[in-house]
């Protein structure tokens, strides 16, 4: 989801467009333990992972509603042995299918069989450009295998996005990462600075880079992009804490994005499950059509009738939709508040305080890795953090 600029609807009654993006989180199982993982902290306590047949039905129903881009994600989607079956059906249905993987569970053979099943594109994520740091952040020895797998992905003929998740400890390696991307012949590079939800929120004090680091990284990214113009596209996602306007989150709630979690819960964004006062529908008990068009959860923040001041009377509300509902909730306790990243928000100081808090946190503070044990331990703690 790179480009912005969606056409704006001018009426207060939201026009329900098709769910162009279906993100299928096929499993929360993952051999890695990234401390910035966007999966919910309490994932270990969630319901049963859905079987092949149910996912096939989700793919068919969403496609009928107009879904076009399919993200196969997780956890680590390669953990699922039925991935090829799902991809084959996605191809038949006319999806553009994207596999979002850490590369663990891939081998040259599997890359070829996914290609044969019609998979369109693979995104491989790296934790760093340096083996030891990569493996430290990932919580296992993964780097060498990832490099091999990125080569296998290209050899099988896929367009490849390399995604580097950036934070305080690895931003200074940006040149190395971009050099690695060139070496691996990536078609696109996503430099995704960590967004603070899920595990990343738990580790925010240790992960949030300084403003100086971010500006320096921007300069490097621009320099490489100018040099590489026709070969490789680089997208640099700045952490929004350092902006004075929020991101147009998900292009608006219930606008284009539909996420289905491993247990079938349908969400308008990755982090929405934490919002209180919601009953998120499940694909096993409601049709995709009901979920998208009539469920309370997907309609709650559609359009802009729900907005409060300063958003309600703001001329920019069609541009950023008041920002991110989850971020608003995490900072202010009110999901309908203005995203406090916005400098028009009376609560902007909360974001600035988070920045100062990270600034004064030293590397001695332990990082909490994403694994089932920590999931159980920190489920309660996160509830406290999002006061």
């Amino acid at each position, binding site marked *: *989801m*790179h480009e912005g*600029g969606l*056409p704006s609807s001018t009426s207060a009654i939201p026009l329900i467009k098709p769910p*162009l993006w279906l993100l299928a989180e096929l499993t929360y199982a993952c051999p890695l333990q990234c401390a910035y993982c966007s999966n919910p902290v309490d994932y270990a306590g969630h319901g049963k992972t859905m079987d092949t047949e149910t996912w096939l039905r989700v793919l068919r129903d969403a496609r009928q509603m107009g879904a*076009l881009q399919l993200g196969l994600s997780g956890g680590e989607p390669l953990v699922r042995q039925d991935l090829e079956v799902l991809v084959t059906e996605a191809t038949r249905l006319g999806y553009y299918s*994207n596999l979002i993987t850490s590369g663990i569970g891939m081998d040259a053979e599997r890359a070829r069989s996914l290609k044969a099943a019609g998979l369109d594109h693979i995104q491989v994520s790296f934790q760093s450009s340096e083996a030891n740091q990569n493996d430290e952040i990932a919580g296992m020895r993964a780097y060498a295998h990832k490099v091999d797998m990125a080569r296998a992905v290209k050899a099988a003929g896929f*367009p490849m*996005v390399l995604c580097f998740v950036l934070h305080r400890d690895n931003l200074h390696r940006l040149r190395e990462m971009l050099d690695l991307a060139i070496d691996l012949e990536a*078609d696109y590079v996503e430099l995704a600075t960590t967004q603070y939800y899920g595990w990343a929120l738990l580790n925010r004090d240790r992960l949030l880079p300084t403003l100086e680091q971010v500006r320096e990284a921007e300069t490097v990214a621009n320099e490489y992009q100018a040099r590489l113009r026709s070969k490789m596209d680089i997208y640099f996602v700045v952490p929004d804490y350092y902006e004075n306007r929020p991101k147009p989150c998900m292009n608006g709630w219930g606008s284009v994005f539909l996420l289905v979690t491993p247990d079938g819960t349908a969400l308008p964004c990755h982090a929405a499950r934490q919002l209180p006062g919601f009953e998120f529908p499940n694909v096993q008990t409601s049709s995709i059509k009901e979920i998208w068009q009539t469920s309370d959860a997907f309609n709650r923040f559609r359009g802009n009738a729900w907005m409060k001041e300063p958003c309600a009377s703001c001329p920019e509300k069609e541009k950023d939709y008041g920002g991110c509902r989850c971020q608003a909730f995490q900072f202010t306790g009110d999901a309908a508040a203005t995203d406090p990243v916005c400098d028009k928000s009376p609560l902007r100081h909360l974001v600035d305080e988070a920045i100062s808090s990270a600034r004064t946190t030293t590397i001695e503070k332990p990082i909490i890795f994403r694994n089932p044990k920590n999931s159980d331990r920190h489920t309660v703690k996160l509830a406290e953090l999002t006061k």
Partner: protein
Amino acid sequence: MSEAKVEYATDYKPLHDGSLNLARGHRIQYEQVQGCDVLLYPEGVVQLSESAAMILKQVDGQRTVIDIAAELNRMFPEDGDLTADVRGFLEVAHARGWIA
């Protein structure tokens, strides 16, 4: 992701005179639900106007800008000379990385 209409980018990458092809990982497909052609690429989708789709569908790995303009002129003789429009659009498509 974007459904943006084509805007003219300011910095054109020079468009070559050789055969044009859709860029790696890009494809065009008609969408019943939206009633139009769309261009799909890794993690992105662009809704195409009728004329944009018409031109892009001529991009087949064989034809050059000149061939494509000639084809469009043959298809729409009543519209006058479309060569400049076709080239202008292909330049934008090229600058956006849709064609190579």
